[in-house]
């Protein structure tokens, strides 16, 4: 059964159909990538699925439940977690506190327990702290836990954002260009991390421009162009699809240079 089901999703900005009638499904443990030239509507699609935009039409189902247009914090409770192409980090907090913030939902308890520092609260805090440290180790940021997040390099912040998303213990993780701006070594690390996460049963929905990465790790690829789905299938099928090749060669020469 599909974990995430997107059907007929669309949104218009002014008169422009930014995304039109896009449908697909993601199963647990699957890595599904959304590709397409710049401006194809990939991030808009992500924003609709994750509740940042309310879709103009269509539906998003999570675990069979209709969650179309629900607020991001409600989706977080239901197991959907995401990262941003241009990062959404608590810049003025420490690296550890950023990940700890990801434990917000699990750490919740009565306010008097917090104020009186009751054992139940301290226990919850310890669990969160240990969990956050383990996640930082997993993305190899454990050495920097006391630093202010704003002082980290771009590649490190990308991994920090993934660690925070993982702190929510998500069933599905949406990654918006996790390898953008990363060097070859960092890309390799993200590649391993994503494969490992999918191996542990988390569904991954990925937007990425690094075609080598996409072709290597995806189990399924969706191709968008001008807001519409023009092809989907496994990496081999999609890369041979004439429409896909046309979309990329027709509009995406600068795209090649970017990768």
């Amino acid at each position, binding site marked *: 059964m599909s974990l995430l089901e997107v059907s007929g999703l669309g949104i218009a900005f002014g008169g422009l159909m930014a995304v039109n009638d896009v449908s697909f499904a993601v199963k647990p443990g699957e890595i599904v990538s959304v590709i397409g030239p710049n401006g194809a509507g990939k991030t808009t699609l992500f924003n609709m699925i994750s509740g940042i935009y309310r879709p103009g039409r269509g539906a998003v189902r999570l675990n069979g439940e209709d969650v179309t247009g629900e607020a991001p914090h409600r989706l977080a409770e239901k197991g959907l977690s995401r990262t941003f192409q241009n990062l959404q980090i608590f*810049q003025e907090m420490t690296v550890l506190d950023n990940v700890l913030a990801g434990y917000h*939902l699990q750490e919740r308890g009565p306010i008097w327990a917090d*104020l009186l520092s009751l054992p139940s609260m301290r226990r919850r805090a310890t669990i969160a702290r240990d969990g956050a440290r383990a996640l930082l180790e997993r993305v190899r940021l454990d050495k920097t836990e006391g630093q202010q997040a704003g002082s980290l390099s771009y590649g490190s912040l990308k991994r920090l954002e993934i660690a925070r998303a993982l702190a929510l213990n998500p069933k599905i993780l949406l990654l918006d260009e996790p390898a953008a701006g990363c060097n070859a070594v960092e890309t390799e690390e993200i590649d391993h991390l994503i494969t490992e996460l999918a191996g542990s049963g988390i569904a991954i929905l990925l937007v990425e421009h690094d075609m080598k990465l996409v072709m290597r790790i995806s189990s399924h690829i969706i191709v968008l162009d001008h807001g519409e789905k023009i092809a989907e299938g496994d990496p081999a099928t999609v890369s041979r699809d004439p429409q896909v090749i046309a979309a990329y060669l027709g509009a995406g020469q600068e795209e090649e240079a970017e990768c």
Partner: protein
Amino acid sequence: MDALLQFIFSGVTVGAVYALVALGFTIIYNASDVVNFAQGEFVMLGGMITVFAHQAGLPLALAAVLAIIVTAAIGVALNKLAIEPARGAPVVSVIIITIGASILIRGATQLIFDKQLHRFPAFSGDDPIRVMGATILPQSLWVTGGALVVFAGLWLFFTRTLTGKAVLATANNRIAAQLVGINTGAIMTLSFGLSAAIGALAGVLITPITLVSYDVGVALALKGFAAAMLGGMGNPKGALVGGLMLGLLEALTAGYLSSQYKDAVAFIVILAVLFVMPQGIFGKSSTERV
């Protein structure tokens, strides 16, 4: 020396009120980036509602609690009815909405209550306490004590509780806060309720000394804003320090120069801060990473 001590006492008393108003500005600014110019009206409402509830026969303490609760509800209503529907509008538009709201609150108070000056008895009598040649009103101790309790309580709230940390997280990055499951809408509501309650408390504490009428909010909002700017907008510590400094400056100006210049101090402070250090004493210069 006696005179100086006397000026310091009165400076700290008004300063404590400015600090509470500045704190109200700070809490809402942190949650929403909006400077809420209706903050002074919350102080006025605290005083006015207490006066009329007390006249209607409620014991003073109960009247004060009622005033704080009603004002907090008005703060929440302001957020729900005027600020939330304008989400996505430029910050300047929302600030103008708060100015509109303050005019509305002032007008409504004038209609529902009246235009007279009012007061209610001080909590612990009006006999001045003599300290080293200067005198201090017992109510002044209530004001400063009240402000200290509020600041200490808030400090505990922000550092110890998960909800408090959620408020800080929302201030730091709203989208990131939503992503980790924080209901930022509820945080906004909480912030408006809390700011209004703190403002009302300030009004309750200061009314026996300065009296209250429907129009005292304007001056208080301006002074509180100056204090918040001086301390660094968005920083509770800055609100405390800025409020006390402004209060002291005013009292010293009134004492050594002329009481006519007292109200000018706040404006000079605003101008000086904007010219010399726009980020205030504790504020950080904001840089956006792209």
